[in-house]
């Protein structure tokens, strides 16, 4: 479903041995003994482009449930594991002929094992099918890493706001920002206690961890914008805010920080087809200019994004999606009624 907003993202800096890259880059300049050494340079565990199997697809290595309808899945994709950086995403299909392409942010990667980790919420037909995959099954289509990586540097005080599943893509950025020497406050918001994910991981990284729930079942009963506003008003306002979550949450985070002039990054997840800039379906209006989320993004200055237009564009296929979901539900009901059919 195009309305699958699930994203997740993890830091990838440092996974690529820098020495290897430098050495290979020197090839054309230095035709001496070093090059001969390259002749036997195949490092263990790092596949070359002609070695990655695709005919069988991308194998599922593990599946687990993090919260209700929130799944974590590891998939074999050696080249993506090697190349990905924080903030980048993949596109996948569950069926090569008739599947829909949905974007999912890379939550983590292990270049040694040649695997990437995806965290997603079951919200549409494609994520439903994805959640139905078992270890050993294969995804026929998986392409990436796509998008421009997050720019990580020392800003000073960074506040990271994650809403629902948005906490997953936030995690790698938090990790990177922490490593870059920033002071980190994490605000995690969820509808209810059971939907708070990655809490221990975030607590381990953050200098301050604030959890809010809509129903007050855990942490403060508040929206993420309340603690965010308090921080902006406080004695040590943030130098940078990163907000990832449902579009409406990102919009209001941007509105919260705007009067304080605090730079606010948001990560957008729009409808996409190819993910390489070819179709323009993902276009958003940023500061009056048309930008493509798949190549110019997914991160943009939240104060410049036309969220209302983006939200209405996300609903372009609402009718068709509802029909597809109903159809899937009917099939499901039918299957339960006739388990051996």
């Amino acid at each position, binding site marked *: 479903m195009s309305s699958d907003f699930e994203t997740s993202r993890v830091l990838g800096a440092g996974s690529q041995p820098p020495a290897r890259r430098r050495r290979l880059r020197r090839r054309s300049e230095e035709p001496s003994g070093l090059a001969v050494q390259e002749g036997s340079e195949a490092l263990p565990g790092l596949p070359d482009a*002609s070695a990655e199997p695709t005919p069988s697809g991308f194998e599922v290595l593990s599946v687990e449930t993090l919260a209700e309808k929130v799944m974590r899945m590891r998939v074999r994709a050696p*080249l993506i594991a090697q190349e990905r950086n924080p903030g980048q995403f993949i596109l996948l299909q569950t069926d090569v002929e008739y599947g829909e392409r949905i974007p999912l942010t890379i939550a983590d990667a292990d270049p040694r094992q040649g695997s990437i980790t995806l965290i997603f919420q079951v919200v549409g037909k494609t994520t439903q099918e994805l959640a139905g995959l078992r270890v050993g099954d294969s995804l026929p289509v998986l392409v*990436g890493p796509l998008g421009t990586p997050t720019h990580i540097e020392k800003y000073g005080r960074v506040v990271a706001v994650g809403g629902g599943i948005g906490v997953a893509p936030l995690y790698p950025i938090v990790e990177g920002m922490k490593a870059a020497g920033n002071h980190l406050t994490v605000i995690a918001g969820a509808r209810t206690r059971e939907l708070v994910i990655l809490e221990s991981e975030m607590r381990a990284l953050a200098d301050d961890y604030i959890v809010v729930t809509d129903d007050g079942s855990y942490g403060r009963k508040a929206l993420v914008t309340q603690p965010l506003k308090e921080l902006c008003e406080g004695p040590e306002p943030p130098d940078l805010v990163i907000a990832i979550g449902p579009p409406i949450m990102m919009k209001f985070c941007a509105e919260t920080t705007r009067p304080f002039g605090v730079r606010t990054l948001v990560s957008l997840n729009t409808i996409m087809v190819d993910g*390489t*800039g070819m179709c323009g*379906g993902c276009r958003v209006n940023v500061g009056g200019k048309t930008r493509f989320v798949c190549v110019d993004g997914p991160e943009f200055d939240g104060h410049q994004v036309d969220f209302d237009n983006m939200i209405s564009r996300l609903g372009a296929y609402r009718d068709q999606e509802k029909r597809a979901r109903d159809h899937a539900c009917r099939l499901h009901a039918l299957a339960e009624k006739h388990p051996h059919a």
Partner: protein
Amino acid sequence: MPRYVEDPNKLNARARGLLEELRDKGTLKMKDRLAIPVQRPPVLDPGERSRWQEEVEKPLTPAQAVLESMRCIQCKNPACVKGCPVAIDIPEFLRLTAEGNFSAAIEVIKRTSLLPAICGRVCPQERQCQKDCAVGKSLKDVGLAVAIGKVERFLADWQRNQAQAPVPRVKSPSGRKVAVIGSGPAGLVVAADCRREGHQVTVFEAFHKLGGVLRYGIPEFRLPKEVVDAEIDLLRRMGVEFRTNFVVGRTRKLLDLMDKDGFDAVFIGSGAGLPVFTGMPGEDLVGVFSANEYLTRANMMGAIHPGRTDTPMFVSRRTVVLGGGNVAMDACRMARRLGAEEVVVLYRRSRTEMPARAEEVEHALEEGIEIRFLENALDVLGDESGRVRAVTVQRYALGEPDASGRRRPVPIEGDTYELPADAVLVAIGNNSNPLLTSTTPGLEVNARGNVVVDPETGCTNLERVFAGGDIVLGAATVILAMGEGRRAARSINEMLAREAIEEAADAPHAHAAPTGHWAPGRLRRRRLALGTRRGG
């Protein structure tokens, strides 16, 4: 049984009758040849076909193909060959077809063009080979030129329907590896030509299906995917490897293909692939699509099979298409087939300036699509929920010729009107997609983002990196892309052959201190040898 504009059996019977008559005449004079009526292939009934994806035009029947080829007067100095971007020996293949020797005829075409089944269907023949055809000139109508494209297509289809098309001969393994980026027309040609020389060829495709624009762009009703599949299958049988879901520049950097994976040469054929938007107000409304997106959803993502596919397709009743090229024609005809009751194409110049293939324009008109010339959208108007409700249209008049030699359209002040619509498809062109060039440091591009190549060799400013097709030309045609591919493949093959000779000459001195330009390559060859063994 589908309905045809003219019954194929009748068309065939008429052609056979004429052939009989001509056979009785013996040697044909020029006058006899000019008197043969141009052969029109069977075409599906417009009313029916505009609801289906089935290919609109069928091949000529064998009798028609023979007869049409007999119309060629075998000029000494054939203008058709000059008009063909890859200079196919057209009089020769027509002569052989007229003799009924179809297999020899198709071989003549395949000497220079690898994809005749595709080019026969999508080339703008009226602007190339058929433009200055002496027969058309004599009859004072370019529409009466020898239907070269139809005969080409007939021959290619005829061969495909034989037991199995012969697999071109491939030389023994050279130990060299060639990477081809993009599986569109340019890339397929390079793959074939380099493979024939015995090189190991891998084609990298970003999408999950092969063919590039032939797959995602050109619809089934104009180019059946079975035709594209057959061409790709032939390459597979030649031993070309294909890697889908692979975005060079992202999944792997271009230079890493050489540095890490041991490819000896890289061809960039990644196409134009960056849709141009007008920037007019309302272009972000729900219901405005690039033709690229619309056609990709329909053609590649299976949205032409509603109910079966998960990819949703925007349902519209009144569709407005902007542009006058082939993509605009494909988009408007697709919208019609997907249920739009009213489809209006806005083109800001007049019919003579329209870049679309003449036949596509005719077919679109037959299918009930309205083309409004000298009109263009000023802005898109939306309803309260952000969905398209209308387009404001500006009328134009033709002014002085511009840089392209075409008369410049000038807006008529105040002459606007509101055209109700619920979808707008923007088909005003493509720029070069920067994904690959921006991730390849040092690769030279021009101001428009096109890769700069040596026009003789197709070589970029980076050693061992070649390019061709739309990434070099900007949005052009399939045949031009093929021509570019052919040229680059020749350069790649020459380069690799030269290196093989140099390497053989140097072999006894392999341990001497390397000097000179080719030293790194020679040393790299050692690594390649290992790689080749590893790969089995």
